């Protein structure tokens, strides 16, 4: 029973990383219809940012890396949008191939820069302990990841709901053409969305260094699951992404506990496929219109 309870923080923290990864995807997918296969590499870029910052920040590299990785991954995403993706808007298959190619290039670049073997980021001492809680133990690192995800979700929620830029982003997501005829410079909104979405993946990458080693292909382990979250949650839906990410994280961790890693993947896929049979549009719908 105790070890079963221990799956809870694991599932929740995996869900948290998935959520941070999926948030960016759900907005770029929902707003621009771009299936960005290179999104996982922004996660990798964030993780290596933490690795590199150890030279300078020592054991405090992880907290220092959070804002830095947001900017690094965000800048990478912004450059990708400006130089490549924007020329392929409205051509989903071409974008898919393009970003897949970029993903491979970025992985190889990481291999050349940092070597193929995994590297380790040392967690600060205040993140290495555990707290006992009625039989189960909660590692500080996992608690930290959950808190980080909560903070990011609250931040994004406030940004979307309260700020001028966030309102503009929702408008473009819901009706791009109408946003343009309302005077919104949609291209600029797209750039900002890409920056923020990619930056969040960078933050997720830093979080990942707390629970495992960092390698050039770290992003590929999360990108598929993150897409599952996006599809199950509904495009561009913050609420949907939160619920779907936590559900998938928990499902994954408990399925692994009862079976094994590969069978767990099968279970997760089967559940998502079954769910999409019932609700093909995902948990929530962006473009609902009462009368059309």
């Amino acid at each position, binding site marked *: 029973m105790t070890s079963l309870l221990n799956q809870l923080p694991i599932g929740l923290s995996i869900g948290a990383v998935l959520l941070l990864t999926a948030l960016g995807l759900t907005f770029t997918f929902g707003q621009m219809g771009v299936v960005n296969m290179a999104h996982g590499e922004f996660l990798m870029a964030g993780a290596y940012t933490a690795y590199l910052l150890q030279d300078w920040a020592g054991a405090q590299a992880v907290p220092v890396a959070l804002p830095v990785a947001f900017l690094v991954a965000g800048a990478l995403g912004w450059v990708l949008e400006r130089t490549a993706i924007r020329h392929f808007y409205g051509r989903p298959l071409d974008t898919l191939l393009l970003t897949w190619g970029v993903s491979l290039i970025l992985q190889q670049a990481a291999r050349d820069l940092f070597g193929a073997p995994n590297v380790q980021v040392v967690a600060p001492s205040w993140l290495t302990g555990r707290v006992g809680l009625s039989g189960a133990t909660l590692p500080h690192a996992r608690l930290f990841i959950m808190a980080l995800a909560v903070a990011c979700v609250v931040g994004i929620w406030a940004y979307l709901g309260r700020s001028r830029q966030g*309102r503009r982003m*929702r408008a473009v997501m*819901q009706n791009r053409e*109408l946003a343009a*005829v*309302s*005077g919104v410079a949609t291209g600029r909104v797209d750039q900002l969305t890409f920056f923020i979405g990619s930056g969040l993946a960078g933050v997720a990458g830093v979080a990942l260094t707390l629970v495992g080693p960092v390698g050039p292909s770290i992003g590929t382990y999360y990108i598929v699951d993150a897409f599952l979250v996006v599809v199950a949650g509904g495009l561009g839906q913050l609420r949907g992404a939160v619920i779907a990410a936590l559900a998938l994280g928990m499902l994954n961790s408990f399925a692994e506990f009862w079976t094994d890693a590969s069978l767990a993947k099968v279970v997760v896929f089967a559940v998502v496929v079954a769910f999409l049979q019932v609700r093909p549009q995902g948990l929530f719908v962006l473009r609902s219109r009462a009368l059309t």
Partner: protein
Amino acid sequence: MSGSLLEVRGLEAAYGRARVLFGVDLEVGAGGLMCVMGRNGVGKTTLLNAVMGVLPPTAGTVLFDGEDVTGLPTHERVRRGMGYVPQGHETFPQLTVAENLQVTLEASRHRDRGAIDEALAVFPRLTELLNRRAGFLSGGQQQQLAIARALVTRPRMLILDEPTEGIQPSIVAEIETAIERLHREDGLAVLLVEQYLELALRLADTFVIIEGGLVRRSGTAADLRDAEVKRLLAV
């Protein structure tokens, strides 16, 4: 002709390889109201989309207040005073009525909150609905919001695509009155796509009739009573 606010010259547009407009010319003077008429599928909506840059034209020019805006992105045309209400009472469905107007205000050049109050004064019905999501409004209410949204940009010309199509009759009258007042009292120039002759007869100063992607007939409101006009519009 000098003094025209909108001048369209030889405008051509296509969807992929399917050409729709074959060189449309028209002019709307400052404070004028022109009706664009014609049967279904002759290119009326395409014309408006090309004028607004939503569909980039393949040839021709669009001059607004003497400035060539043909190459400008849509939002820049809006900021220069071209207010557009596309077909089908479009809104941001998950934003509230207030947010629909606010996002438009924030994108405008003037940023004057008074513009929202002015737009609500035109459609007072919307004031009670400010906190409702636009997607839950009736079609007529959505259309009023769509026009109010365009008014928030403080346009010098209002470009409307069949504003009364598929709208409940009680609201059609309100919309018609609003357009008439904006035109007559505030001197707003209007380019109106409209299928119904009676409405055009009541509102228009001038008209063009489009057929096969070209202007087949143009004139002043009095000419609309011609038998030839009836023939061009008959279904």
